[in-house]
């Protein structure tokens, strides 16, 4: 039915004596929106870091479209079509909004330094196309007018959107979002999830996202994985996750469960 975009096999990441991620086996199909949830320190971001090549896993493998990408360099992985955002926004300070997106466009301009320095017409054409593409992306999230502003001068919510746009500029097929709704109120979070949903359809994406608050992702995810202390304690569709006693115990805690 669906072909698998991303999968991991027995993925583990140890830092000294600490096992941050242990035996992670996930499988994400094309155009799915999949959640990775768990309490603080559960190893969610570490899992992302291993998938995107920032860390080399202690054990296990990562497959992207059936190709083993374990231990590839981050820029190679990005080139293959995996892009990500960060939990704490990591925009390029002192660069404008447009330039931040252009950094993402870097991949699509493949010409060498030589033709760039000589400013050959072919190069100029590509660069102009990149600019146009970047502006079109900014337009989608309503940041056209902010294009010339310094990225870090934007309000928080817009910075989050800009980070997503910057990731989109690398022409990904798989987008990893690390707590995209962090610091947002429930209303904003829901809007963001709707936005992510449209993104998926518009850019033909597969989305893997980390979320701390379970409620936020309930409506948007096709299925989700729950981590606790690096161990996958549950996997399934949102409804079954919500009822899973293990999840309620380990992740939601007594208070949240009571509130529900």
């Amino acid at each position, binding site marked *: 039915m669906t072909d698998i975009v991303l999968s991991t096999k027995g993925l583990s990441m140890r830092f000294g004596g600490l096992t941050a991620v242990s035996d992670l086996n996930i499988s994400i199909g094309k155009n799915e929106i999949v959640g990775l949830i768990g309490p603080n320190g559960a190893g969610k971001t570490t899992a992302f870091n291993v998938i995107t090549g920032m860390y080399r896993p202690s054990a296990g493998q990562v497959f992207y479209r059936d190709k083993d990408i374990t231990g590839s360099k981050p820029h190679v992985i*990005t080139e293959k079509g995996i892009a*990500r955002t960060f939990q704490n926004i*990591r925009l390029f*300070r*002192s660069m404008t909004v447009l330039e931040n997106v252009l*950094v*993402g466009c*870097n991949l699509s301009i493949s010409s060498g330094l030589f033709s*760039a320095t000589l400013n050959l017409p072919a190069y100029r054409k590509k660069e102009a196309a990149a600019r146009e593409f970047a502006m079109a992306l900014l337009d989608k999230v309503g940041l056209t007018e902010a294009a010339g502003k310094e990225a870090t001068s934007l309000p928080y919510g817009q910075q989050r959107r800009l980070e997503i746009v910057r990731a989109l500029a690398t022409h990904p097929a798989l987008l990893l979002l690390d707590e995209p709704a962090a610091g947002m109120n429930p209303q904003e979070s829901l809007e963001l999830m709707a936005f992510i949903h449209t993104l998926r359809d518009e850019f033909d994406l597969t989305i893997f996202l980390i979320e701390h608050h379970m409620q936020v992702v309930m409506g948007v995810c096709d299925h989700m994985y729950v981590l606790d202390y690096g161990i996958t304690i549950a996997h399934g569709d949102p409804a079954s996750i919500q009822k899973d006693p293990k999840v309620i115990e380990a992740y939601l805690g007594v208070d949240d469960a009571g509130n529900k």
Partner: protein
Amino acid sequence: MQVPAFEWIKNLMTFTLFLQHIVNALSLGSLYALLAIGYTMVYGILRLINFAHGDIFMIGAYVAFYGTALFVLPWWASLLISIVFTALFGIGLERVAYKPLRDSPRISIMISAIGASFLLENLAVLIFGGRPKGVEVPKVMGQVLNIGSVSFLGVSLFIPIITFGLFVLLMWIVNGTKTGIAMRAVSTDIETSRLMGIDVNRVVSFTFGLGSLLAAFGGIMWSYKYPQLNPLMGVMPGLKCFIAAVIGGIGNIGGAVLGGLLLGIIEIMIVAFFPTLSGYRDAFAFILLIIVLLVKPTGLLGKRQAEKV
């Protein structure tokens, strides 16, 4: 009524002399700027002070010297060859001495830079010999030009003009091209740049190549202006240009140029106005550094860096 006329001539003389000094100061300052740019770019990308940069400047000068003296090439041909060779040399140096240490503590890579500097200097003594070599200055560079009553060497006019041209080109590369945007991205955040698909090694190589190219050009021009080579010729200019980069605000290319020009102008002017102090000319750079660091620790054009979380 003879006195005012005499006064007028006297004024003219000092004014001419002043212009003369200005030309000198600009050409020396431009040379400093060329070298300072290399320091500042490498620091911007890797937070590394490339202590061997002054020696790269020396190598550029020697290669051009051998091009004309040994292989009897025309000066412009050996200039081009030297620039290309030195750029590749700079890239190679980074690969061998800095790249393996990129994830080590900052102190290791700094010590490696100091080591590379000593190695290059001593290799130069071994290969080129310790005896100073006289440079044959190309006619265009060595001829005396007269504009009004100001006369100067061709090279003194050539240096600021070309430096300005290179600076404009560099600013365009940094601000207007994708490689430049990649450079700025890497200098802000290496990890994130990688995840945006930037090949950091390529950007670092490009930076070293560009910096070494400018250093080579500076070294060759230096050898036309002061036509004598020795293996340690890069030490003092290297040190001063590092200071120039710090004064301008390290990591900032415009700042490096400003710092270089400032240093050149102050050095020449102090010697011109206080000839008795000429023995201390090298000390002024350091005094200026101390003053600037006391008043504005980030340098003239430097911005305070927000702490990375």
